[in-house]
């Protein structure tokens, strides 16, 4: 057995060109439009004292509109939308804001619909992983990952719908209203 390599911070100098234009738009692939309802997910990322963090890298991974992941481990992957990659990247701007254009995911096998998040930043010694859930979904109550989060903190993982199809999901790395992060 090999031992996984030690992580390290992404540091302050991740090349700006690595956040390619359009990398935060998951609704198209090879210039073809994916199937499903287009939504926007945006939010602000802050550190303990409330200061918004600029230049933080956010990556998301999600199922397509039918709840299928584009990956061979998903038993239904052959039916996955060929125009939907499921992955995107954004970096926060000066006000700490990130934004994605994506599709409302379907519920993957055994889970409520959700979007998986990863955060990488200068001074973050390891990647932080979390998940965003949708408000008003009955399936949230039965989701095994949400159930693993202490009850008092679960609401922090549920986005706010600011307008139809426009979701706000703020992230706090530490302190008051700290986002629950997962250890796998």
């Amino acid at each position, binding site marked *: 057995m090999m031992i996984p390599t*030690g992580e390290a911070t992404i540091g302050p100098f991740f090349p700006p060109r690595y956040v390619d234009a359009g990398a935060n738009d998951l609704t198209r692939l090879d210039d073809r439009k994916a199937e499903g309802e287009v939504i926007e997910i945006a939010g602000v990322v802050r550190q303990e004292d409330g200061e918004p963090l600029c230049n933080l890298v956010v990556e998301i991974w999600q*199922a397509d509109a039918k709840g299928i992941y584009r990956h061979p481990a998903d038993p239904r992957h052959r039916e996955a939308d060929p125009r939907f990659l499921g*992955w995107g990247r954004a970096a926060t701007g000066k006000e700490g804001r990130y934004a994605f254009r994506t599709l409302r995911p379907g519920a*993957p096998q055994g889970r409520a619909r959700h979007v998986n998040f*990863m955060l990488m930043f200068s001074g973050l010694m390891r990647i932080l992983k979390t998940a965003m859930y949708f408000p008003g979904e009955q399936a949230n109550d039965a989701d095994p990952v949400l159930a693993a989060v202490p009850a008092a903190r679960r609401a922090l993982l549920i986005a706010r719908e600011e307008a139809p199809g426009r979701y706000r999901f703020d992230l706090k790395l530490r302190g008051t209203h700290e986002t629950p992060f997962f250890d796998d």
Partner: protein
Amino acid sequence: MDTVIAPRDERTQPIRIVPGYPQTPWRNPGEPLVKRAPTLSELTGPLEVAKRVQLLGGDIAGRGEKQAIGQLMHLRLHVVDEDGSPVGGTVVEIWQANAAGRYIHPNDDDHAPVDANFYGAARLATDETGLLELRTVKPGAYPVPTKDGWWRPPHIHFSIFGRVWLSRLVTQMYFPGEPLNGQDRILNAVPDAAARERLGARLVPPTGDPHNALVYEHQIVVRGRKATPAQP
């Protein structure tokens, strides 16, 4: 092939709040991290990142005919999983300072000079044997703005996707024998000495091929091993 992700030995991974690294206490979680059993969401992941972001060439030691200043080096990077099996076709992002210790980045306002022929970023995919090769110049050391004598030793950054969401890795590679390695606060945030040792590249004895560059080899292990098929 289904992937199994087991918890890592904490001593092989960096501590989160690092003494002398002033940003770390503001940014790393204070609440206990939540343990979860991986589901399909974490045991799948993007395999075709290159359809969203553009691959860039494997020779960054200059611009066209114009060579960057510094010690030419050739890096052979092997990406494997916890079984030691090669991870082919995975995207690896690489970035580094120039030979004087300066990055091309708006955040780097260090005194060291920019090299017009060096940008310092490559994005490549491994071949089916898990290998990628990069021609570059050896990065220089640079002082951290803490101004208390912390210098980063020469190092190269990697961002790697692997086969599933939980195999995503951001790490740094160091050079053997560098006197600054022993005092670096990021390298030494990994408690286990053998794990730190594995973050170092290996200088391959020169054989004349290529004749004009030092050859380094480095291995990166991403998380995940194959599931053992259930017995009938």
